[in-house]
C-alpha cells in the first residue's frame, strides 16, 4: 500500500511537471491540477496511512491516539483543496483574458519562432 501510494504520487508529480513545462496555457493549468493532487496526497501521507481509523472521537472513552488517523494533515489538506480551486479559477480567468488580448494561448502571450 505504501509503495503504491508513493509510486502514484511520483507519477502524478512527474506528469504535472511535464505539463507545466509545456507552452500552452491549458497544458499548464492541467499540470497545476495534477501537481496539486500530488502535493495534497504527499501532505496527507505525512500523517501515515491508516485504514478504518477516521479521526472521529468515540465519546466517553479515553482517547488513544493510535486508534485514530492523524487529523492535522487532514485539516491542512482540506483547506488546501479549497484554496486550490480558487487559484485554479484565478489562473483560468487570467489565461482566458490573455488569450483574448493577445490572440494566442501561448503562455508568453506570443508565439515562438519555432512552433512546438
Amino acid at each position, binding site marked *: 500500500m505504501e509503495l*503504491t501510494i508513493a509510486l502514484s504520487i511520483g507519477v*502524478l508529480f512527474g506528469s504535472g*511537471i511535464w*505539463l507545466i513545462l509545456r507552452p500552452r496555457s491549458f497544458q499548464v493549468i492541467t499540470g497545476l491540477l495534477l501537481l496539486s493532487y500530488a502535493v495534497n496526497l*504527499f501532505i496527507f501521507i505525512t500523517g501515515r496511512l491508516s485504514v478504518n481509523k477516521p479521526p472521529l472521537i468515540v465519546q466517553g472513552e479515553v482517547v488513544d491516539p493510535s486508534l485514530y488517523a492523524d487529523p492535522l494533515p487532514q485539516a491542512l489538506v482540506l483547506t488546501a483543496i479549497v484554496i486550490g480551486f480558487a487559484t485554479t479559477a484565478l489562473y483560468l480567468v487570467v489565461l482566458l483574458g490573455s488569450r483574448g488580448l493577445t490572440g494566442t494561448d501561448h503562455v508568453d502571450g506570443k508565439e515562438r519562432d519555432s512552433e512546438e
Partner: protein
Amino acid sequence: MTLLLLLLPFAGCVIAACMPAYARNREAWFAAFIALCGLLLTLSLYPEVSSGIVIKHELAWLPMFDLNLVLRMDGLAWLFSVLIQGICLLVVLYARYYMSPKDPVPRFFAFLLAFMGAMQGVVISGNLIQLVMFWELTSLTSFLLIGYWHHRADARRGARMAFTVTSIGGLCLLAGVLLLGYIAGSYDLDAVLASADIIRAHKAYLPALVLIALGALTKSAQFPFHFWLPHAMAAPTPVSAYLHSATMVKAGIFLLMRLWPVLAGTPEWTWIIGTAGVCTMLIGAYLAIFQHDLKGLLAYSTISHLGLITCLLGIGTPLAMVAAIFHTLNHAIFKASLFMAVGIIDHESGTRDMRKLSGLSRLMPYTATLAIVASAAMAGVPLLNGFLSKEMFFAEALQVGPSSNWWMSAAAVLMGVFGVAYSMRFISVFFGAKATELPKQPHEPPRWMRFPVELLVLCCLIVGVAPQLSIGVPLQTAAASVLGERLPDYNLAIWHGINAPLVMSILAFALGILLFKVLKYRFNLLQSAHIPMLYRFNGKQAYESSMLILASSAARLERLFSSRRLQSQLLLLVLAGLFASALMLQAMPDFNPVWSVEHFNLPFALLWLIGCTCAVCAAWQAKYHRLAALMLVGGTGIVTSLTFLWLSAPDLALTQLMVETVTTVLLLLGLRWLPSRISARKMNLVASSRDKLRRSRDLVIAIIAGSVMFVISYFVLLHPANFTISNFFLDNAVPGGGGTNVVNVLLVDFRNFDTLGEITVLSIVALTVYALLRRFRPAPESIGIPAQQANQVDPASRQTPAQQANSGYLLIPGIYLRLLLPVIGISAAYFFMRGHNLPGGGFIAGLVFAVGMIIQYMLAGTVWIESRLKLNPHRWIAVGIGLACFTGLGSLAFGYPFLTTHTAHLTLPVLGELHLPSAFIFDLGVFAVVVGTTMLILVALAHQSVRSHRVPGAPVDNNATTSREIR
C-alpha cells in the same frame, strides 16, 4: 527623566512637521524651545551624574530575549548630551536667519529634531541592539538633512553617498554587536562592560572588533571611508555645523569610547584604530590645504581632527582617553563656530570660493575677528582650547612605543604643520585687497545670527584660559565613567614648563607658516586647481566605480538568469527544487529502501493503476484534446477522493469530490474561449530537432522529479508515525472544542484564525475573478457559437439563450433537477449540521449547495434561472465574512481573546437537545463564503457566453444577444 529626554525631540519632530510652511519664526522658536528643554533636563541631571551615579531607566520589552529599552546616563553620555542639545539650540537659532523664506522650514526643523532625538538615543542607550537602532536612525535622518535641498543634484548625490557608506557601516556594526552580545551572553551594556576580559580572550574577538570598527570608522569618516564627508557639504550650513562638529561624525567616536573598556588594550585594536586614525589625520589635513571651497576646507579639517581623536583612542592609554574626550569637546566648539562663520560669509557675500574672497575683515570686521579666533583654536594657538588638547596629543604621541620609535611623534608634528597651514589658508580670506567681483556686497549679519558664533568663540577662550575651572569636573566625570579606577592623574593647565610637547608645538607653527608661504608664493596655491601627490587618490571615484560595478553585475546576472518567458522561469524553478531535494536526500541518514509487500492491497493498487493512467494520458492529451484531458484529470481526482476515503479521511474525500465537480464545470466553461487546435499529424507538420530536444529534456526532468517525489514519499512512509502536536488535538477535541470530528474542530475552533484567513483569500480571489471578467475581451474568432454547438439538426443551436429558455429547451431534465434542488439543499443542511461531530461542515456543505445551484444553471440556462432566482453571491460573501468576524469579536465581549469558542447546549421542544457551539456560527460564515465564492466565480464565467462582446473595430450590435451582468 531620561525617557523624557529621549521622547521630547521625536514629539517635537511630529509637531514641527505639522506646522504651516510659512511659519519660519514659530518653527524656530518651537525647535529652540525643545532643544532648550532638553538642555535644561540634561543639566538638571548633572549633580547626580557628577557624583558618579549611573542613572538607569529600564522598560521591559522582550525580557526573555534580553531586549529591553534601557536608558543609561553616565558621565560620557552626559557630556555628549550637553553637546547635542546645546549645539542644536545654537544651530536652530542660527538657522532661523540662515534659511531663506522660500525654503520649506517645517521639514527642516522636523528632520533636525528627529536627528537630535536619534543622536540622543545613541548616547543614552544602555542596550547594544538599541544603540544600533538609533545609530541607523541617525544615518537615515542625516540622509534627509543632507539631501534637504533635494532639487540640487549634488545634494542628492552627497546624501546618497553618505547614507550608503554609513548604513553599510551600520550593518557591519549590527553584526559586530551581535557577536559581542553572543560572547558576553547579554546585550545589556553594563553586562558587556563587565565581561571585558572574557571578550578580549574569546576567539570571536577579532571579527567583532573588525565589524564594530567598520561601523565606527564609516560613521566618523575615517580613512578609507572619509570621502563621503566632503560631499555631504551640499547640505545647508546649519546642518553641516551640527552634523560635522558635534553629532553625526562624533557618533563613531562615541561608540569607540563607549566600547573602549571592552575592546581596547590589544595589539589588534591599536593597529586597526590607530592606523586608521593616523592615516586619516594626515590625509585630511593635507587635502584641506588645497581646497578652494571654505566648507570643503572645513570638511577635510574635520576629517583630520576626527582622525586625531581616533588616533588617541587607538593609542589606548588612559591619558590618551582623557585627551580624546577633551579634544572631542574642543573640536565640537570651534568647528561649529567655524561652520557658522562660513555660513555667514556665504549668506552675506554669495560665495564660499576662496579664490574670489579676500579682504573681508574690512567689510565684516566683527565676524572676521570671531572666525580668526576660532581658526586659531583649530590651529592650536595658546590660550585657546585647541591648544590644550593638542598638547596632550603630542605628549601621548611621544609615549608611543620605545624611545627609538619616533614615527608617531613625526606624524603628530606633521599633522600640526598641515593644521597651521590650512588655518592660515582659511584666514587669508579676511586679509588682502577688498574683493570686488562678489555676487553680493558683504556686510555684517543680523545681530542674532552672529550670537551663536560669539557664544562658541567665548567658550573657546574660557576653556583655553581657565581649563580646570571651566571644564575640569565634567571632563573628569566623563573620563571616569569610561576608565573607572584606571583614571590617571592629569593637570589641565596652560603652562607645564618648557617640555617636548611645547617644542613640538612651536616647531609645528614655524613649519606650518613656512609651508603656507612656500605654497602660496612658489606654487600659486591660491589659484591652483591641482592637488599635488594625492590627486589620484580619490575615494569618491572608487565609490562611484564600485556602485557601477554593482549595478552592472546585477544587470549581467539578470541577463543570465532571468527571462521574460514563463517556460524558462518554470524550468529554473523546477531545477532549483530538484537541486534542493538532492541536497536533502544527501543529508538523509542511511536510507535502505525496503520493498515491503506485506501491506500490498490489490484493489488499492488497481485503483491507482487507473489514477496514474489517467494522469499520464492527461499529460499526453492536454495539447490537442482538451476535453479528453479534462475528463482524465477528473478521473485522477476521483481516484484521489477515493483514496482519502480509503485512508480514513472522510472529510477530505467529500471535499475533494465536490471540488472536483466544481473545477470540472469551471474548466468546461473556460474551454469555449480557447482557440481550436488541429493536431500536427493532421496538419502534416514535422517537429524540428530543436523541439524534439526540448521535449526530451522536459521529459527527463519530469521523470527525475517524479522519481524524487516517489523516493521522498516512500521514505516518509517507511518511518514510524510521529505525532507531534496531533495528540493534543485528539485529546482536546471533545473537552476543548465540544465536537467529535477532530478535523472540523481543528478548522473551526483550534485553528479558526487560519480558516478566517482562508475564507478571506477565497473572497478576494472570487472578487478578483469577477473584476477581471468584467473587462473580458475574447478573441474575435471565439465570439460566435463554437463549432461543436452548431448542429444543423438541432434547432436550439440557432437560438439565443433567451429564446432557448422560453421554448422549453431541455425541459424534462430541467424539471427533474428543479425537483432535486430541495433535496440537495437538505443534504447540504444535513452535512452542515452534523459537521462538528461527523464528516461534514461548512466547506463541504457550501460546496454541495453550490453544486446544486450550478446544475440548475447548466440545465435551465442562465437566463431562465436569473429571471426567477436572485442569488447575489457578493452578499453571500459579505455575510459569510461578517458572521465569521462577528463570532470572533463576540468572544472579546466576554473578555476572551479574539475567536475563542464556546459550546452551549439548548433543549428545544421538537428537536430535543441541540448541540450549539459558537463555532457553529463561524462555520455558517464559512458555508456562506464558500457558496458565494463558488457561485460568483462560475456564474461570472458563465455570463461571458450570454453577454454581447464587442469585436474590436466592429459596430456595436445591440440586438445580437441579451446583455446582462450579474449584480
